[in-house]
């Protein structure tokens, strides 16, 4: 079924970066000097330059506020640093932490391989853009160093020294500036307005090239000077002098100088247009950034803060703990190594064949990592040998035979009778379970249902011997994985935590988001297909479902599935909060996904349906091989939007009492007697982490769109 891989005619072309080829076809942008660029884009007219000046000042004010907040001596960032593990994994025991690292390592290996192998390493960043970004980052850091107010001088008791009333206000110029900063700033902006109006009136803004721009530049610099100078004014608190403040920020200066220097060096090396448009793979830039972070963990004194065996540890001058920096270093090496491995394999014959197994591994990863690695299940070997393995073997063999028989090309009506028979038995099983007529392992019931579904679908995949062998192998593999996972799920965890949840914090945020995605995606696609189906019963049911679940607020669903749903379950069954919440999220998200996919389905043209009918495809074949691939490609942007929304909506877990990322930062840390009332730091940190993830998801979807050519075809 797999499409043959198109081999490039020239091995050299295979080596070339995909982005390079893409870029080569575009006309080269005219090269502008910095001054020309500024005058064309930011200062093209008197009004535009006024807008530029006012909004840059606003940006600078916001940046200053943020920096002053983050670096103020009143902030207790120690609360976040000490609670770092707590924020990410809640009460997951320290002694079992290797499991967390294994999980991250597995994800790193899979990511490295996938990116190296599957993605065309396309896009990339042009050298020109890279050097400009480096310089801009350096300049931003330098601006930040200047804008941030100087730290307060700290007394022997570790608290900021306050000025006594007499010396609170001197009469120096800076003190006057401090008191009148807003007035001065307002006057400067007013001067700007007048200047702009005057030049506009004379209509010589662009003709007289230098004068107006120099005048605006002077005003902008004066405004910045006011803002920076005001920082060093004497206030209530005794603060460092300018020289001391700059000396304290030596590390930041170093970072700024290195960034600007690296950018400038790159720029200087970009003699001609060809080199300027050379593309660096985006992954290498990412690796370099991540590598710098990892390196800084070994070199820079981030401080070591922890809570170990009942003691708070705070060592501000040291580097982070070995138990943090060593695993991250290993993970970084794994990531780079597997990326290179993937690239090396890509050109060989094995490469294309690895695509499908790799995708299957990705789908299995969440289940295996959660139930096999994180939970460390305690398998009851007697039960495994006596029940689990025989049952798995039975279903593999029996189902394999059924699949082999039903996938015969000339099976015809008989196959349908057999399949319906199996379905009846499966349904009967569930009815029996509902009334409790005779006991049976749920696993057998589910396996039977799976078999019935596969039997119903088998004739769509009928083919020759090798095709039938493939189907049987897929069934056997699916049964092996399914029974293994169910056995793991049914085994108690040996990881002992003091609370009811195995893991919390960002861990649970990720787990709930990933499982929601895995559950809601197939459900959403099925609902969309049902809503566009010709069978009225499917249409009505699906429409009713979608309208009900879109009409009910998510928080209501969460309360229902965590608090009320248990009352409907049989006595010996309970749904833990996290499972209930995941179900609630999935049902809700599926309704939205279904509508997104339906939009895609409507974009598939009639001719596609008619053509597939003409070649004699069955409905299932047409849906799987013709309609869905096109529909899903079209609906990528809304689908990714839904994924990001789901990821962020997991913060509602806090409301139903699950210790997710947000709740720990919001409620728990601020209630620790060590950090009583410290809340804003945690919230800022949490929003930053959420942003990092959501931003990267959105970036990835943009790349996906580009690769699949959405909007171009």
């Amino acid at each position, binding site marked *: 079924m797999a499409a043959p891989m198109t081999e490039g005619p020239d091995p050299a072309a295979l080596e070339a970066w995909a982005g390079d080829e893409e870029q080569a076809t575009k006309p080269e942008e005219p090269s502008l000097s910095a001054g020309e660029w500024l005058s064309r884009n930011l200062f093209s007219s008197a009004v535009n330059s006024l807008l530029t000046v006012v909004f840059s000042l606003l940006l600078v004010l916001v940046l200053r506020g943020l920096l002053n907040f983050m670096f103020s001596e009143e902030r207790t960032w120690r609360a976040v640093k000490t609670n770092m*593990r707590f924020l990410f994994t809640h009460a997951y025991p320290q002694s079992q932490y290797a499991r967390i690292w294994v999980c991250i390592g597995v994800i790193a290996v899979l990511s490295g391989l996938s990116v190296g192998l599957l993605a065309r390493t396309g896009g990339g960043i042009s050298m020109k853009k890279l050097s400009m970004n480096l310089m801009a980052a350096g300049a931003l850091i330098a601006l930040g160093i200047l804008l941030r107010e100087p730290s307060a001088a700290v007394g022997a008791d570790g608290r900021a020294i306050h000025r006594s009333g007499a010396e609170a206000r001197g009469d120096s110029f800076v003190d006057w500036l401090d008191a009148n900063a807003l007035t001065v700033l307002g006057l400067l902006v007013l001067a700007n307005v007048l200047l702009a109006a005057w030049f506009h009136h004379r209509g010589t803004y662009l003709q007289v090239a230098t004068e107006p721009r120099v005048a605006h530049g002077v005003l902008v610099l004066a405004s910045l000077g006011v803002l920076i100078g005001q920082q060093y004014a004497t206030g209530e608190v005794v603060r460092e002098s300018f020289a001391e403040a700059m000396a304290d920020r030596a590390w930041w200066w170093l970072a700024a100088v290195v960034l600007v220097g690296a950018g400038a060096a790159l720029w200087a090396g970009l003699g001609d247009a060809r080199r300027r448009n050379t593309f660096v793979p985006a992954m290498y830039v990412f690796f370099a950034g991540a590598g710098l972070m990892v390196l800084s963990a070994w070199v820079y004194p981030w401080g070591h803060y922890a809570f170990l065996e009942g003691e708070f540890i705070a060592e501000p001058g040291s580097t982070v703990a070995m138990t943090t920096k060593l695993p991250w270093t290993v993970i970084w090496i794994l990531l780079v190594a597997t990326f290179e491995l993937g690239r090396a394999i890509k050109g060989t014959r094995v490469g294309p064949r690895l695509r499908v197994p790799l995708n299957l591994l990705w789908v299995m990863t969440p289940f295996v990592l959660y139930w096999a690695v994180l939970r460390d299940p305690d398998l009851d070997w007697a039960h495994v040998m006596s029940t689990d393995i025989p049952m798995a073997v039975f279903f593999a063999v029996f189902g394999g035979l*059924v699949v082999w028989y039903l996938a015969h090309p000339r099976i015809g009506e008989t196959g349908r009778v057999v399949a319906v028979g199996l379905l009846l038995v499966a349904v009967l099983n569930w009815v029996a379970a509902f009334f409790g007529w005779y006991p049976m392992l749920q696993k057998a019931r589910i396996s039977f249902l799976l078999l019935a579904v596969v039997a119903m679908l088998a004739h769509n995949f009928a083919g020759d011997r090798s095709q039938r062998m493939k189907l049987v192998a897929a069934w056997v593999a699916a049964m092996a994985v399914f029974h293994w996972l169910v056995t793991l799920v049914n085994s108690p965890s040996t990881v002992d935590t003091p*609370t009811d949840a195995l893991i919390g914090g960002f861990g649970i945020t990720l787990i709930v988001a990933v499982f929601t995605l895995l559950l809601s995606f197939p459900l959403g696609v099925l609902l969309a297909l049902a809503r566009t189906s010709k069978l009225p019963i499917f249409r009505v049911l699906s429409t009713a479902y979608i309208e009900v679940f879109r009409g009910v607020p998510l928080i209501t669903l969460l309360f229902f599935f965590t608090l009320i749903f248990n009352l409907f379950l049989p006595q010996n069954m309970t749904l*833990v909060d996290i499972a209930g919440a995941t179900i609630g999220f999935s049902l809700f998200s599926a309704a939205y996904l279904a509508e997104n996919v339906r939009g895609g389905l409507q974009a598939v043209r009639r001719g596609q349906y008619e053509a597939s009918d003409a070649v004699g495809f069955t409905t299932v074949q047409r849906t799987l091989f013709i309609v869905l691939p096109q529909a899903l490609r079209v609906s990528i942007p809304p689908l990714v939007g839904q994924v990001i929304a789901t990821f962020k909506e997991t913060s509602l877990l806090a409301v139903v009492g699950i210790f997710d990322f947000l709740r720990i930062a919001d409620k728990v840390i601020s*209630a*620790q007697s060590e950090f*009583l009332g410290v809340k804003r730091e945690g919230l800022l940190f949490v929003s930053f982490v959420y942003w990092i993830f959501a931003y990267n998801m959105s970036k990835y979807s943009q790349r996906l769109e580009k690769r699949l050519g959405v909007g171009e075809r």
Partner: protein
Amino acid sequence: MRRALLAVVAVAALFASACGDPDPQPVAPGSAGGSAPEAAEPATTAPEVVTDGEDGDLLQRVQQRGRLVCGVSGTRVIFSETLPDGTVVGVDADYCRVVAAVVFGDSDAVEFVSLTAAERFAALQAGHIDVLFRSTTWTQSRDTEVGLDFGPVIYYDGQQLMARAADGFSASSQVADIAGAEVCALAGTTTEQNVSDAADAAGTEISLSTFEDFDQIVENFIGGGCDVITADGSSLAGRKAKQQPDDQEWVIFPAIPISKEPLAPVYPQNQSRFADAVNWAVYATIIADEKGITSGNVVEMAASPPDAEARRLLGGEDELQTAMGLAPDAFYRAISQVGNYGEILARHLEPAGLTRGSLNASWRDGGLIYAPPAR
């Protein structure tokens, strides 16, 4: 050929559906959580002992499970705060450990479930937790309407006010002194109602602002946005100990609180065997406090008890724990592993700058802490 295959399929189908493990071992539906072990537990064996309540005997269920599921706040200093490694400490948390030590002989056999104020009773009714130690005030409506039972009071709290000494307040100030002040309280709680009632009774006019979050209230109080803030005395004292800036002095008044907040454990209604175990676990720590039996000297005390009551309590001759369905040394273990009432209180009150005070002193010292005799 086809018929033969059909027959094989049918027979195999019947075989597969008829045979199976007699134990129902349900897969937790869509379980992304670690529910499976609980869900997989067979709950079919009918309890032999006298059962009370519709769902069977709770004490027996807890004993079978092997650990106590205890509902706490997890976000309240002194009573139950969650440390960065996930452990829960505080008076409430220690009483969960006392009950676990009484039931299982192991104070670590507790699973803490952190609950918000809104969901605590629902969690207890739904059977998510066995017992609730969440600084819950014992009131008539909760005891009767909500369908729960309360155990003995473990801490007598009461709502008080806190103001700055610089504004002319002192520990001897009265509610009448806050006339015209900006008073801040938590929105939608009884504290809000209590303070306006108290001001009405004292005949003073106050301006009341409410907030959703106590951290916000304290921040406003430090910044000067609030003149007087109000909450339970224990909470105010904790804040004063940790958050009072160097250049301010905060005072807590009036000496006699404006409300009664008896904090007590809560358990499901009509579970008398479990209720007895919880009640007597609390009483045992109080009796031990009266008799000076501490975690430090309990070994000697058990070897040579000071009186007959102490002997019975610590599992000696004529002990009554066996009759309750507990181990004879249940209380001995609780006291040796966790401590007596005074020890537990001191452990968590002192870091917050609090003492037992007059209400939570032993009845011998004029307080309200009193336990029925163990005989």
